[in-house]
């Protein structure tokens, strides 16, 4: 019998054969050589532009200027002055409606008077029906009179019921009264708290060269979300049934599966030309059909790219047409990954087609659906081509999204720094969206 406790045979001493292996046989250099192109590409075309745009956004760079200087976060937010937009001034309150109406009737005989007040200011008051109603204090007497006469003569005076009494309110229909500009926040607060003597709806408007102060920026941001979520929802509603259809067995299924990706693979610069004609204001084939089918009259044909509501519809339509094949194919991949036996078991278990879709197919496709949604959201959120070719952001910036707006400001207008700042706003928003989607995916797995 062999003694199992005996020491094992001495192991052969292995001397590490360092650099005995030929250079070409070694794996490490080959590995580095293989990832080098990727590293070069990423650093040259992704990292460098990204860092460069961060740098540019911190400068006052302009196209044509030889040198630029560092201005900190001025491109993101820079306030030069504040203004107050005021409306709905409460002139006076009365116990009954009749008295209030009588007061409003006296307005045409009303006057604006001024008197010196505290701190080298003039106090303006309305003199109406033997009542003196102070309304504003300002340093310049003429300004006080001008504002007072505007309120007295140009605004609509309405009687509004208000908690047991009736208020006479001066309402500006078109543009509210502008007070200011004020250089500092302190001056603004003084006007709101001390100098404006009537109760009114006030809103602060900031003027400045920063992106945040730009009134077009919130519009572009809103449009970007409208565009992204509009397209994604429609893509899902079209993509899911398309994928289910293509997952069935029928003749010509393979050909159809191939054909469906055509919108996705045609360069958008080419397909958009067709869409430009389809959405043309005069020659639109959609209008032609609608008129011929008697749905609309030739007089009110739709101006797809010129009307502010239809313009957003049009760019969403083109993006959906282009993007739904991607969604379809990804969902189809998810559907094909479900084993036949699972569906058969569901049938034996007694699930109807609808129940199979709700309880079995949907949950099993969901992870891959989220991946497709993630990609699709990124494509749409950063999409420039579709909008630029179809509407160029118009009409009146109604389809302006962040990417087109950044291009407009940065390249067309030449404010490179501000353009870079606009485009960088996409980064944190996308980061948050991607974070939540990945979080969701991780929980599923």
């Amino acid at each position, binding site marked *: 019998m062999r003694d199992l406790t005996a020491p094992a045979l001495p192991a052969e001493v292995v001397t590490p054969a360092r650099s005995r292996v030929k250079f070409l046989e070694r794996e490490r250099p080959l590995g580095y050589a293989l990832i080098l192109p990727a590293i070069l590409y990423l650093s040259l075309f992704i990292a460098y532009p990204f860092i460069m745009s961060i740098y540019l956004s911190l400068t006052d760079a302009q196209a044509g200027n030889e040198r630029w200087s560092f201005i900190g976060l001025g491109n993101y937010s820079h306030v030069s002055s504040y203004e107050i937009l005021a409306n709905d001034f409460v002139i006076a309150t009365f116990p009954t409606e009749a008295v209030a109406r009588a007061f409003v009737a006296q307005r045409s005989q009303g006057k604006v008077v001024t008197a010196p007040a505290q701190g080298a200011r003039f106090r303006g008051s309305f003199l109406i029906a033997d009542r003196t109603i102070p309304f504003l204090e300002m340093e310049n007497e003429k300004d006080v009179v001008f504002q007072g006469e505007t309120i007295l003569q140009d605004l609509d005076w309405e009687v509004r019921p208000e908690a047991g009494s009736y208020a006479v309110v001066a309402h500006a229909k078109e543009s509210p009264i502008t007070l200011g500009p004020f250089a500092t926040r302190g001056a603004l607060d003084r006007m709101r708290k001390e100098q404006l003597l009537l109760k009114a709806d006030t809103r602060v408007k900031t003027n400045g060269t920063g992106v945040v102060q730009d009134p077009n920026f919130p519009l572009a941001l809103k449009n970007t979300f409208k565009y992204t979520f509009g397209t994604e929802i429609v893509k899902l509603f079209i993509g899911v049934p398309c994928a289910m259809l293509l997952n069935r067995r029928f003749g010509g299924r393979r050909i159809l599966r191939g054909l469906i990706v055509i919108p996705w693979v045609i360069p958008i610069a080419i397909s958009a030309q067709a869409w430009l004609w389809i959405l043309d204001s005069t020659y639109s084939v959609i209008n032609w059909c609608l008129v011929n089918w008697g749905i609309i009259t030739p007089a009110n044909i739709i101006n797809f790219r010129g009307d502010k509501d239809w313009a957003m519809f049009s760019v969403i339509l083109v993006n959906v047409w282009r993007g739904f094949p991607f969604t379809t194919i990804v969902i189809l991949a998810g559907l094909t990954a479900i084993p036949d*036996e699972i569906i*058969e*078991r569901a*049938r034996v*278990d*007694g*699930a109807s087609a609808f129940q199979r879709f709700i309880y*079995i197919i949907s949950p*099993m496709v969901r992870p891959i659906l989220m991946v497709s949604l993630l990609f699709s959201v990124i494509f749409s959120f950063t999409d420039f081509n579709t909008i630029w070719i179809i509407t160029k952001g118009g009409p009146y910036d109604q389809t302006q999204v962040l990417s087109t707006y950044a291009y407009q400001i940065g390249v067309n207008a030449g404010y490179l720094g501000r353009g870079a700042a606009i485009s960088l706003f996409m980064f944190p928003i996308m980061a948050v969206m991607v974070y939540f989607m990945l979080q969701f995916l991780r929980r599923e797995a």
Partner: protein
Amino acid sequence: MADVTLEHVEKRFGEVLAVRGIDLTVKDQEFVILVGPSGCGKTTTLRMIAGLEEVSGGDIRIGGRSVTYLPPRDRDIAMVFQSYALYPHMTVYRNMAFALQLRRLPKREIDGRVREVADILGLGEHLERKPRQLSGGQRQRVAVGAALCRQAGVLLFDEPLSNLDAKLRVHMRTELKRLHHSVKSTMIYVTHDQVEAMTMGDRIVIMNHGVICQIGTPLEVYDRPATQFVASFIGSPPMNFFNGELATSDGQAAVVLEGGLRLRLARQDLVGSAGRPVVFGIRPEYISLDPNGRPYAVKVPAVIDEVEPLGHDVIVSATCSAGVFQVEIEIYAGVQRLDHIDFWFDMNRAYLFDRETECAI
């Protein structure tokens, strides 16, 4: 009562006739095994009973009611699939409860049934896990459990053990058999493994090329195979076959094998059929190294080609003048490769098949 009757059931896939009009009656609470090589139509038959495959011709009745055109959910059946087909996104509990929830059973009853079945199958502590957190054997149990919860009249099994490793398969085999005794369901079980068929079933249905070759208890099909195919399919190692011709010598029937070996038969009814071409068959178990006093043992000299030890037994491949054959003998016999040895065929246990029809004579 959940007896299953198949009447001239046919299945056609395009030009191919996969199931060629089979007739089968499975009694209530019987455990019947459909067995055969791959492509013999056994799985297709099971899927037609389940309602997953349309029937091209004939009639299927469950509990006396024709279900030929009913969807699976109206057939009073439950099924265990080869790949288990567990819903990966549901917990074990929901996997087992799903079919009951679809039937809108009261929550309390669903819970009771699931926990009872989980206890029987030893799944109690895994109820909140997802299928991918379970081992192969546990998944198998969940699949069986989900089918048991249904309390359906007929349980269908589609090669449920083929994905398990050998040890677990033997274990589950006994467990399923035990389950059959406690569950009052008719069971129809498809397998290609003749050992599973022999060990588990009340009756075995052997299929080949879309037809049923024989239906019988395990012992019947082992002892009295109806065709050469059944004889070759049932038993391990398989039966040895030699071509030969019937002959008569000294007023007794004999068979003359190719190569001239003449073996005296134990049967008197074949005396008149001299010259008939037959296939002579004998199982490896009935060939031994000495006659042991058996009256119908005949001597066959042979050379040993190969010896495969199995433990207690060895399988010996040997060549005699009629051809190659296998023998199962005890390892202590100590035979070796290239030994010249006289084997003894127990002619009481010999089979004869018609060479044309392949039917047993």
